[in-house]
């Protein structure tokens, strides 16, 4: 544990200058450029979605400015995450995990927590910013599970049942807290991420099958015994019969689909979408931001965004496959599962094929914590890749 945080020096240290050249040369540029492109595209969408809201205030660009500050901070955090020493990260994972779980409790403290759209998942910060601790919890859970599941003995080909149980316990604690926060969307994403990490760790197939079955049964039981409140059920199921009524749940779904469908092949053009500019789609700068690209840039713009997401997922999967140790692979697959499932859930709900739950579109939606957490995730993917390259260089 010698050396500074962002130091790759070790037994066979490479000269500093060579390290720098190595970093920039071996970076996964396709991944970085795709992430930057999505972020830039997203900023344009946030601008379009927010300018009519902000028109009442003096500066219609104020929301965009706030978003751009968050983007800069996020990219900087991603850079740090890509350069942090792998082993240091692993050593500090328990502390990161504990801090993350404790911070999940912050929204419950009166005067600190903020309730948005029925979920008590935010912390007020000065300057009109808010913090959503559950976003950072996703990173902590991935790191913690990767750490637990990769400590198996070398001769074992799969993690022991004890390790799997420990990992499931580590995932269950934050999941329970987030469930109490009423943040269904994050619970679903985090559940899928945990399942992925356990599966990729090589755990016995019965674990994987058992967990999938358990999740399905759990959801059904929750609905049956009324653990989920009626409006939650409505919200989750309104996508099945959206036109049946015009209450808020299916109203959102309807308006979102009118916006996207109306976009047609090439869309109305930036700032020209009637649904977007008329504020018919709720929270279209964050959770429903995909309606903006759908309406204003049409099928061409939407497909481009989906394809850019595809590039990120592809690069992430390649990094996971090529990772030189299990820890790296687990981190990379956890990140890919997180970004992939969350993107599918977010876009799917605006298209009416997934239930409406409040998760942001990674790298696109306005919302500081999500943006920062996603860039840290991109940084971690680069970190795993660079680690492998360095090890290969050392021979």
């Amino acid at each position, binding site marked *: 544990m010698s050396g500074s945080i962002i130091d790759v020096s070790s037994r066979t240290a490479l000269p500093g200058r060579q390290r720098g050249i190595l970093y920039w040369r071996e970076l996964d540029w396709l991944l970085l450029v795709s992430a930057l492109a999505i972020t830039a595209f997203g900023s344009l969408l946030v601008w379009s979605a927010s300018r009519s809201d902000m028109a009442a205030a003096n500066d219609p660009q104020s929301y965009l400015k706030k978003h751009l500050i968050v983007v800069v901070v996020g990219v900087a955090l991603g850079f740090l995450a890509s350069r942090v020493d792998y082993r240091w990260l692993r050593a500090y994972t328990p502390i990161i995990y504990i801090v993350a779980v404790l911070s999940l409790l912050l929204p419950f403290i009166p005067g600190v927590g903020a309730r948005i759209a029925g979920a008590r998942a935010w912390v007020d910060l000065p300057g009109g910013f808010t913090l959503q601790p559950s976003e950072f919890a996703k990173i902590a859970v991935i790191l913690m599970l990767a750490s637990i599941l990769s400590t198996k003995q070398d001769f074992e080909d799969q993690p022991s049942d004890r390790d799997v149980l420990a990992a499931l316990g580590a995932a269950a604690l934050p999941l329970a807290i987030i469930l109490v926060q009423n943040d269904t969307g994050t619970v679903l994403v985090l559940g899928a991420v945990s399942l992925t990490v356990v599966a*990729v760790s090589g755990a016995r197939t019965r674990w994987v099958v058992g967990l999938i079955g358990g999740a399905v049964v759990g959801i059904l039981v929750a609905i049956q015994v009324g653990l989920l409140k009626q409006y939650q059920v409505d919200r989750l199921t309104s996508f099945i019969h959206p036109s049946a009524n015009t209450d808020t749940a299916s109203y959102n779904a309807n*308006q979102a*689909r009118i916006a*996207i*469908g109306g976009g047609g092949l090439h869309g109305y053009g930036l700032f020209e979408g009637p*649904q977007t500019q008329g504020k018919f789609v709720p929270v279209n700068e964050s959770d429903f931001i995909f309606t903006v690209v759908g309406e204003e840039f049409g*099928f061409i713009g939407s497909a481009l965004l989906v394809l850019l997401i595809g590039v990120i*997922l592809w690069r992430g999967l390649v990094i996971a496959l090529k990772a030189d140790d299990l820890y790296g692979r687990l981190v990379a697959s956890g990140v890919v599962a997180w970004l*992939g499932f969350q993107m*599918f859930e977010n876009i799917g709900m605006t298209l009416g094929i997934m239930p409406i739950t409040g998760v942001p579109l990674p790298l696109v939606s306005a919302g500081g914590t999500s943006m920062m957490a996603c860039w840290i995730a991109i940084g971690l993917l680069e970190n795993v890749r660079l680690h492998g390259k360095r090890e290969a260089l050392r021979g």
Partner: protein
Amino acid sequence: MTDQSTHRVVILGVLLFSLLATLLGRLFYLQIVTGDEYRAAAESNSVREIVHPAVRGLILDQAGRPLVSNRTSMVVEVDRVTLEREPNDGADVVARLARTLGVSASDIGDRLKNCGTEGAKAPPICWNGAQFQPIPVATDVDTETALAIMEQRNQFPGVTARLSAVRTYPQPFNVNAAHILGYLGPVTEQMLEDQGDSTEYDRLRRTDQVGRSGLEKQYDTVLRGKPSVTTLGVDTSNHVTGTISDKPADPGEYLVTTIDAKLQAVVEEQLVKAIQRAQSQGLPGDSGAAVVVDVRNGHVLAMASYPTYDPSIWVGGVTKKQFQRLMASESLSSNAIQGLFAPGSTYKVISTAAAAKEGFSLNAKYDCPNQVTVGGNTFRNHESKAYGSISLARALEVSCNTVFYGLADDMWKRAGGIDAARTAADPVAEVAKMFGLGSKSGIDLPGESTGRVSSRDFKAANWENKKDDWCRNAIEGYPQTRKTDPKLADYFTALDKENCADGFRWREGDAMNAAIGQGDTAVTPLQMAMVYAAIANGGTLYQPQVVKGIVSGDGKVVEDIAPVVRGKVDVPKSAISFLKRSLPGVTKEGTGRIPFAGFPLDEIPIASKTGTAQVTGDKVSTSWFASYAPANNPRYAVIMMVTQGGTGSETSGPSVRAIYEALFGVRGTTVDPSKSVLVGGVPKKSLPVVRPDGTPVTPEGKYSGVKASSG
């Protein structure tokens, strides 16, 4: 790492990419396959506005008295969208509402119909506004009825009662001033078209009332202010999705006019008396106008037109029938600024100035025979009276036509006579134009007439315009008229033959007629007032002005409007001073003597000129009385005219005298400025004060003009 781990990464990849493919497929379906349906849905999803017009600004007189104000009226409105959700499209609610309001259900039904739809009545009954705007179905509802409706909300879904502001006319001293104030009416198609596709929140909307005449029109945007607009998002099923923007109203600003209500009331009363005077002589006396201006700045202190109308008739909208009746009465246009009349002898001041400019001696003697004959036509003096050889001043006093015929004849010959080029000198017309005749005075009221100045150039231009008709008629010989009256047809045909052949020529007789304000010359009474004001102030032609300031609804001065000088009359100084020396003589010992008998002319000398203008056809002459006073230190110019009213002296003169008595506080032969109709004896220099709550500070006591409460 085991193979199983690697397999599971691959499975994850396959799973994620099939999810992405699902998204793309769904996008393709929504946007390409069914896109058009959603596009249609998006378009019926729209933004709706709830608009309440701002309270319109008041119009004050120069002393702060409101001439136009607002009162509140309880308006019952119906939200059609809510109504249509009720059983039977809300027929029961409408029936209940009709009973409560004491009207028939079909009356309310008519109000709820969109204009232009089947079975809809004509505006203002049908609804011209936006679909989502609550529709007013009853105005001036008493408070008790309104409360009954509001207290039983469940009985009256979609019905609300709201206070709204409507125009009211306080009429201090029973003043009318309809032609100055103007009236409001619904916005016209033309106005809506002119603003194009404006999306400004303060654009005109179909339900808006706008000024359609007078000050209400001229200063419409100032008075109107900006409406409060709440913009709502409304989805396809008429559900309000949220408030998109909310703009508060910006109340209209107040106009401070140069009009003095008390003086205006006197002028209106005296105009009616002049009309009655004409009628008591057995003359038609069918219309008239009177103007009082401040000669030092062009402020119009009073301006009246007869016939007039009650401005409050427009409140709440007029029906087609009412409008036709108003049009037929010819009371809508202002004779003071829109009427065109031959000025007659009042024009002689211009001929005099032109003669001076041409070098004729102002002090020489001129022959005043009872008639002159030129080219076979006889031109007479009024009543064919001969005065012998008289001074030019005396010629003005007794209004000797033949002296001016002589001057005009000489000038015509000098310019080249019958063969003079179109551009040859035409001094009388040139001076008339310098005094602002033949062009708009620029008063801040809409619809002003330009007028005409009879001249060589005008005749040529007129011929070019009309020669085709004349020549055609000369050939055709009026076949229609000939069937009933061949003699008249012969006369017309001969006339048109002559006109066709050489109607462009400026003949000797034309020049002579022009010099005494006859022929093609036509002026508005206001133009004539500005001529006499310019003489009075030594040759400065002001732009007449009705509004001297704009004050915000909370009392801040927005604009103090300064007088505007149109130009300087370019005639020898001696000519103006000659007129100023001579015109008091008209009142003292000339044609203006009789109406001013007994008036304290030593204290307040009055400069005047009478006019008895001939009118073509078998109409009686127009009575004119033009004047300014005090002649030694001029302050006011007063003009009055009555069509088919007889002589200027007999019909208009006494009324002009009464106006001066009111202005200067003359009682019999004594002058008491404290008895003047103007507070302090003169027009106020400063703008009246408006309190922060929007009420103007008005004069007290006998100057208040507030009507005894009569309801």
